[in-house]
Structures are given as C-alpha cells and as structure tokens.
C-alpha cells in the first residue's frame, strides 16, 4: 500500500457532503472504483484496496514525458512496475523527469525525439524494443499549444507547427508502435486529446482542430486494431495545472480567475489525469477500446 491509497474513497461522508466552494485534490488519487477490486473477485475486496504492480513487466513509452501530465504518468507507471521510456523533445525536461523518478537504467530511459519526424519516431520505438525487449504501452502526451487569432487570420506557420506535433506526430507514434505491439501479441495506446477537441475553443483554432483529430484517429485505429489485441483509447482533459497551461494563461490573476470559475474551484492536477491513463493502460481496462474519456472536473457538464 503506497501513497496511491489516498483515493476519493478516503473522504469521509461529512467531507463529501460539505458544500465546499473549493474541492481539494488528495495528494495522489487512486483510480476511483476500478483499481480497487481484483479481477479474481477476491473476497473482502473493498474500495480502499489498491492493487500494486498494475503494469508489472510492461514496457511503456510516454511522449511529452518531460513535464506536466507526461511526467506524472511516468511516475505512476514506474510505481506500478513498468519500464518507462521518457520521450520528449526537451532533453532537460526528460532528464529531469528521470531524475525525479529515481529509476535505474534497468527501468527507465530517455528518448530525445521530435515526433513530427517519422525517422526519429521509428528509431524511438526500435530502440525501446531493443533495450527492453518489447513494447506494451504507448501514451501520446506530446503537444504544443500556440494561441491564434480567429480562423481567417491564422498564420500557416502556426497551423503547420501545431498539426505537425499534435496530429502528425501522434500518427507517427501510433504507426510505429502498433506493429511492435502486434509482434508482442497485445498493447494499449492512450492518446491525450483535450476538451478543446470536444467542444472547441476560440483561443487556438489549430490546437482545437488537432485535438479533435486525435479523438477521431483513436476511434479509427481502435476499429482497425482491437481485433489484434491493441486497445486504443483517448482522454480529453479540461484545464490541468501544467507548465503549458500556466504559460498559455496571461497572468497569475487570470489563472486564479480560471480556477474560481470552475465547479470544483480549481483546475485539475497532472496526477489526476495520470491515474486515468494508468487504468486505460493496464489490463484492468481489458474491455475498453475506442473510447474517449472526459476528465474536466465536471466543467463541461455544468457549463451553461
């Protein structure tokens, strides 16, 4: 039992029913309701029980592993027994993640990769299989967010840079990971979209379109590869407290204003998305493929 025991179920009834203006996040959420019951239906299993080692003997690549959701995912994966390749264009960020994980050479590796370059992506996958023997899990978290004016004023460079990373890069990662997973007999891909890909946002046309494309790519790829043992799913997070979000928010005051307008009184934390990624990546989600999960703290549901 580790820190991941502190799931939603640790809240007392009084805490749950308290009409709080700001719902605080536990230090580390378990995956509510899923990771707590053994597949064997173990007698006495209850919601406070967490299975450790959910990715034992699994090999995972996490793109965008140098910060934010990707970094939190690398941490969760390592905690659950996976061997993790921390892939990022930002070498310093990827190496900082590796240092934080405190994993050894036998459990972690850094891959400095520009995912919009197919040759680099192929090399990343090949080297992962060469080093760790196989590939079980791919998390496509790498993305950029460039703010743009309305559609008619969007510059080609902003469109191209965004699409090259967020959509073409993700396509390349799937393209080269899937054959490795088929050779392995099974696999799980988790694509990180965004609520902007679900509902659209005004502040970045290419970002929203690219993230909508990720959702659609997920459905198509799942339709094509689920029968071969590859589960492919997608997560659409709302506002998450990452360097990217803070950097694309005009000021600290604007960030606080965003939190104040949220039904939970706060934006999400990278660990909260990593928990959902973990579940989708693990065998606990063995009957889930082609789905997109919204994780926005109820923001969309309560929007007028």
């Amino acid at each position, binding site marked *: 039992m580790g820190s991941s025991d502190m799931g939603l179920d640790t809240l007392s009834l009084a805490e749950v029913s308290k009409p709080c203006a700001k719902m605080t996040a536990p230090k580390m959420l378990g995956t509510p309701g899923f990771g707590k019951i053994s597949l064997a239906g173990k007698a006495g299993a209850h919601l406070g029980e967490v299975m450790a080692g959910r990715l034992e003997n699994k090999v995972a690549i996490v793109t965008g592993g140098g910060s934010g959701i990707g970094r939190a995912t690398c941490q969760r994966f390592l905690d659950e027994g996976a061997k993790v390749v921390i892939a990022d*264009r*930002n070498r310093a960020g990827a190496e900082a993640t590796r240092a934080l994980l405190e994993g050894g050479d036998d459990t972690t590796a850094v891959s400095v990769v520009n995912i919009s370059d197919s040759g680099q992506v192929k090399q990343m996958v090949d080297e992962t299989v060469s080093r760790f023997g196989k590939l079980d899990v791919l998390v496509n978290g790498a993305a*950029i967010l*460039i703010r743009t004016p309305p559609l008619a004023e969007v510059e080609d*460079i*902003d469109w191209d840079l965004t699409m090259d990373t967020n959509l073409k890069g993700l396509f390349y990662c799937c393209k080269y990971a899937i054959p490795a997973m088929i050779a392995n007999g099974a696999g799980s891909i988790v694509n990180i979209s965004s609520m902007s890909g679900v509902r659209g946002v005004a502040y970045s046309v290419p970002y929203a379109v690219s993230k909508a494309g990720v959702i659609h790519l997920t459905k198509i790829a799942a339709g094509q590869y689920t029968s071969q043992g590859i589960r492919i799913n997608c997560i659409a997070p709302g506002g998450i407290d990452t360097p990217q979000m803070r950097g*694309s928010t*005009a000021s600290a005051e604007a960030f606080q204003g965003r939190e104040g307008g949220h039904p939970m009184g706060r934006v999400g934390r990278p660990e909260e998305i990593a928990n959902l990624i973990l579940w989708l990546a693990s065998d606990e989600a063995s009957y889930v493929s082609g789905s997109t999960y919204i994780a926005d703290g109820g923001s969309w549901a309560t929007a007028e």
Partner: protein
Amino acid sequence: MDKVIEITNRAVADYGFRQAVMYGANDIGRRWGLTQAEQAVLEGTALDLLISLPVPVPPADIPMEQARLEAEIRAAG
C-alpha cells in the same frame, strides 16, 4: 536579423510558440528560411534570452521584453 527578431517577438508573446523555438530551433529556422548566420544567432543569443524569460511574460511587459531582445539580437548579429 529581421526574421530572427520576428521569431523572438512571437516567442515572447506566446509561450507555446516559445517552446517550439526552444526545443526545435532547427525546425523553426528551416521553416523561416534562415541563413546560417541567422540560425547561429537564433540558436545562440536568442535561445539564451528566451530561456531566461518568465512563464508567461506578463502582457504589460511584452513590448518591453520584445524591444530588449531585439536590441540584443541586433547587437549579436
């Protein structure tokens, strides 16, 4: 150095674009058609300046920071 300054001006104003420059200066230089000399300034002086900027640059400070970076880039070029 006008192209380099155009790139850094945008990188000051937009953190996402700044990341694209910081971690993909080669790619950005290719897309902008920079000369070797311009590319060297982008990967040298300009990157050093961009890395040291706050995240994000407060909107009120953007013109000042853009002017400061332009002056240093012109001096380096």
